[in-house]
């Protein structure tokens, strides 16, 4: 028996409410003191198409999806067909009696199926409560939850609580009661299978309730904690929910949020607010960021703080709107003509989305430059139960850098203030506009120390440009080195960045459990970094395997420019799906010589160097095992349905 460690998949058609019931169950589990991680897989359309919600539960914190499933709640035939292969032996499918299961396939894989007349019962109870069939049918969700609680040994009251809460003021209404009745019925029915199912969800005695947040909410929270009062944005998946979250919080925190006419305006509004001294941001995806490129350079030139979130999705161009990827790193690093200081941070995980976004606002003001926060679709949507101790937002310390105080401003000799004064660290003391003693202009042309246009003088140009660029050197002293995870002196080091953080950690744990000495070197701060310190860190890696969600190994390119070091192997994936730890561990096992002769580095199994062509094939082959087959099916199914 396995207690408090399992993955549940809830699959059906968009609009059937898998997200809602999944979220409800997750809520109940977290209230019971368990940890969850959940993500969904949905299509770029509003209704129809196969979607699923994937919920991983743990006694300890869980940070990433697993690719083994223990229980499938099937709302449609696809859910059965598509997830059967992922179920572990002993796993189960809960479904309505009106769906088909291939008993042979089940038996072969030692999978059980528990069928209930969910729909019939929901209709029956619903009818009695005066509900129309459409709404009555929606109680399928509640029924599934009831059954799940029963077979996992999870207390029914916990489910009842969430149902009641969902109804809020309508608690006790006929509909609410009908839902409870359906859940109860399913719970009771499913009891008979409880002994057949090995995975249990038992609320711990000392359980603590936690928040459930997705990455974009955590980004918004980080912004709010850091004193960001302003967000202007234009909707673009998967960036949209940042402004939506902040808008929902606007009253509570007195924020101004603005949906603008386009992304050009979005960043310009934020820069306008930033120039005045309001901590301001925008959030978008790569295509929207493309429209911000000109203004990004303007912020660089006028040294205006602004925080920009790019939530990546596969491209180029429109690409795959609801999918995930890591294709924008080099774009963000080099966007806009000529050169200026910027910071690129790529948070990994919910708590990091919070913390590194909050930090972004300090960096933006301390270094008076744009700060880019790079996340991705998978992380934007995936939720985790996260303790406040992991994100101590009430204690976040705001550091506004070289900002003149009111007293300092009052003491200024009028007309002497120089917004772009030369300084050793490249940062000039900043006066917010509005004080009589510090009236000044900023200009996107090259300018004097006073901020006046100076398009000609080469000496002034060299001084101002070098001053700006000096901030990069200053920044390097504060920027953080990549983090190590796993044993020192490992034979294999997995290198990654951003949202893959926990999948890679999980791979490290799996590999070590298999006797492969692996560790991970993970980048959250990506630019700028101190080249020498970085080279020292990389020198500790004996056999460096680069793991990225793009085709050209972008982080590896950055690292090579920094240090000259190139990875020994690369596992690159660009199918729009997130990495899982198990997938990475499998790839390593298959492609890296994990048992090198003593004192030697790991070696590739077949050839000394993975050529480009070969690499692509490897990825394809890997996909073929899991995803490819499913995908082909998914397409077929979608066609049949429309």
């Amino acid at each position, binding site marked *: 028996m396995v207690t408090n460690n399992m993955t549940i998949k809830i699959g059906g058609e968009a609009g059937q409410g898998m997200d809602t019931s999944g979220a409800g169950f997750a809520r109940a589990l977290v209230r019971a003191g368990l940890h969850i991680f959940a993500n969904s897989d949905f299509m770029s359309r509003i209704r129809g198409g196969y979607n699923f919600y994937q919920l991983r539960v743990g006694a300890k914190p869980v940070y990433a999806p697993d690719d083994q499933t223990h229980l499938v709640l099937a709302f449609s035939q696809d859910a059965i067909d598509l997830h059967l292969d992922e179920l572990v032996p002993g796993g189960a499918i809960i479904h309505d009696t009106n769906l088909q299961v291939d008993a042979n396939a089940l038996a072969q894989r030692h999978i059980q199926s528990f069928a209930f007349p969910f729909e019939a019962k929901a209709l029956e109870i619903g009818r009695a409560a005066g509900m129309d069939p459409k709404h009555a049918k929606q109680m399928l969700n509640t029924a599934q939850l009831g059954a799940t609680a029963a077979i996992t040994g999870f207390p029914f009251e916990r489910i009842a609580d969430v149902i009641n809460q969902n109804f809020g003021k309508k608690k006790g209404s006929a509909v609410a009661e009908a839902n409870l009745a359906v859940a109860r019925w399913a719970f009771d029915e499913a009891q008979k299978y409880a002994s057949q199912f090995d995975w249990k969800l038992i609320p711990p005695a000392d359980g603590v309730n936690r928040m459930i947040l997705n990455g974009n909410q955590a980004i918004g929270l980080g912004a709010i904690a850091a004193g960001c009062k302003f967000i202007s944005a234009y909707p673009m998946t998967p960036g949209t929910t940042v402004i939506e979250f902040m808008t929902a919080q606007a009253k509570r925190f007195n924020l101004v949020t603005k949906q603008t006419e386009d992304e050009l305006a979005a960043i*310009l509004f934020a820069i306008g607010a930033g120039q005045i001294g309001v901590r*301001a941001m925008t959030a978008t995806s790569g295509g929207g960021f493309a429209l911000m490129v000109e203004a990004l350079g303007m912020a660089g030139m006028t040294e205006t703080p602004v925080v920009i979130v790019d939530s990546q999705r596969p491209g180029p161009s429109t690409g795959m709107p609801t999918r995930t990827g890591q294709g924008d790193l080099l774009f963000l690093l080099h966007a806009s003509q000529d050169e200026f200081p910027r910071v690129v941070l790529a948070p990994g995980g919910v708590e990091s989305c919070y913390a590194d976004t909050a930090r972004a606002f300090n960096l933006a003001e301390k270094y008076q430059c744009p700060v880019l926060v790079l996340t991705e679709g998978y992380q934007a949507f995936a939720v985790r139960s996260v303790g406040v101790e992991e994100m101590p937002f009430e204690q976040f310390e705001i550091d506004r850098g070289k900002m003149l105080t009111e007293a300092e401003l009052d003491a200024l000799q009028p007309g002497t203030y120089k917004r772009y004064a030369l300084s050793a660290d490249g940062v000039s003391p900043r006066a917010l506009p509005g004080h*009589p003693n510090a*009236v000044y202009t900023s200009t996107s042309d090259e300018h004097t120390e006073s901020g006046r246009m100076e398009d000609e003088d080469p000496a002034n140009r060299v001084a101002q440009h070098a001053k700006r660029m000096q901030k990069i050197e200053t920044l390097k002293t504060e920027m953080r080195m990549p983090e190590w995870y796993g044993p020192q002196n490992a034979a294999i080091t997995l290198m990654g960045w951003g949202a893959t953080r926990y999948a890679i950690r999980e791979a490290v744990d799996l590999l070590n459990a298999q006797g492969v000495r692996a560790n991970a070197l993970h980048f959250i701060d990506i630019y700028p970094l101190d080249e020498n310190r970085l080279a020292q860190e990389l020198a500790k890696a004996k056999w460096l395997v680069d793991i990225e969600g793009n085709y050209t190994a972008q982080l590896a390119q950055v690292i090579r420019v920094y240090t000259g070091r190139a990875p020994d192997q690369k596992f690159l994936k660009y199918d729009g799906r997130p990495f899982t730890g198990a997938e990475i561990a499998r790839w390593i096992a298959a492609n890296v010589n994990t048992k090198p002769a003593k004192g030697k580095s790991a070696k590739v199994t077949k050839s000394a160097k993975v050529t480009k062509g070969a690499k692509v094939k490897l990825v394809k082959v890997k996909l073929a095992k899991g995803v490819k087959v499913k995908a082909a099916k998914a397409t077929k199914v979608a066609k049949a349905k429309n």
Partner: protein
Amino acid sequence: MTLPIPEFKFTPKLYDGERQVTWCPGCGDYGIIAAVKQALAQLQIPPHAAFFVSGIGCGSKLPDYLKANGYLGLHGRSLPIAQGVKLASHNLKVIATVGDGDAYGIGAGHFIHALRRNSDFTMIVEDNKVYALTKGQYSPTSTRGWVSSTTPDGAIEIEFNPVVMAIAGGATFVARTFSGDPKHMAATFAKAIAHKGFALVDVLQACVIYNHVNTVEWYRPRVYKLDDDANYNPRDYTAAMQKAHEWGDHIPLGVLYVDERPTYEEQVKSLATTPLVKQALTYRKETWDEFRAAFM
């Protein structure tokens, strides 16, 4: 802004910048900047309480020659910056000074949406009907058939009529003035700045280098002042639209249209009390407690 605002009467000279002006001798922009100073003085707006935003172009250099807060941004992108500034600090008097290419060419999208928004700022367009700083290409306000280096056979597009589009699009203040009439300019700017809401002033500006048609001499006999017509009611949409279409032998100057509508900033709940830039960046424990509870 803890210092008391000095009590002496501001004179136009107070707004003189320290920079040498680089406009061509005879350029209409000289008159425009003088009128801007005049209007600021008339309204007694101290330099630190004004915020100028501009784009790129001859006309957009204006804030560089002024003593006042300013942000000289990107070609065509001044309006979103101005609105960001205004949302951040709604007590600032925000004034955008841009060229016709900037305002109505590359900036047309922002212009259209600014009209709908009614943010409380003023947009002064130095409309010389040509792309001057880039050496004379046609602009959206160039007369149809305009010959330039990119339109040797004459421009095919019909002109963009700023005042028609502004009225149609929802501006609450639409005026036109002329760089050859300093007094009219100053008075019009003052009215625009005093207006609560988005105010457009299209200035017929002489460019002595690239526009040899719409010169001061060409305009002088054609312009006439609506302000002189006691019967003209700028609150009458239909009448305003009619006047806005007038062009050629008779070109109306003055306030073409005025409407009243709450400003954007007035309608943003979070700005009801303090300007955003003056608000606290941290929150009380209870606020956080509430927040936390909402996600548990």
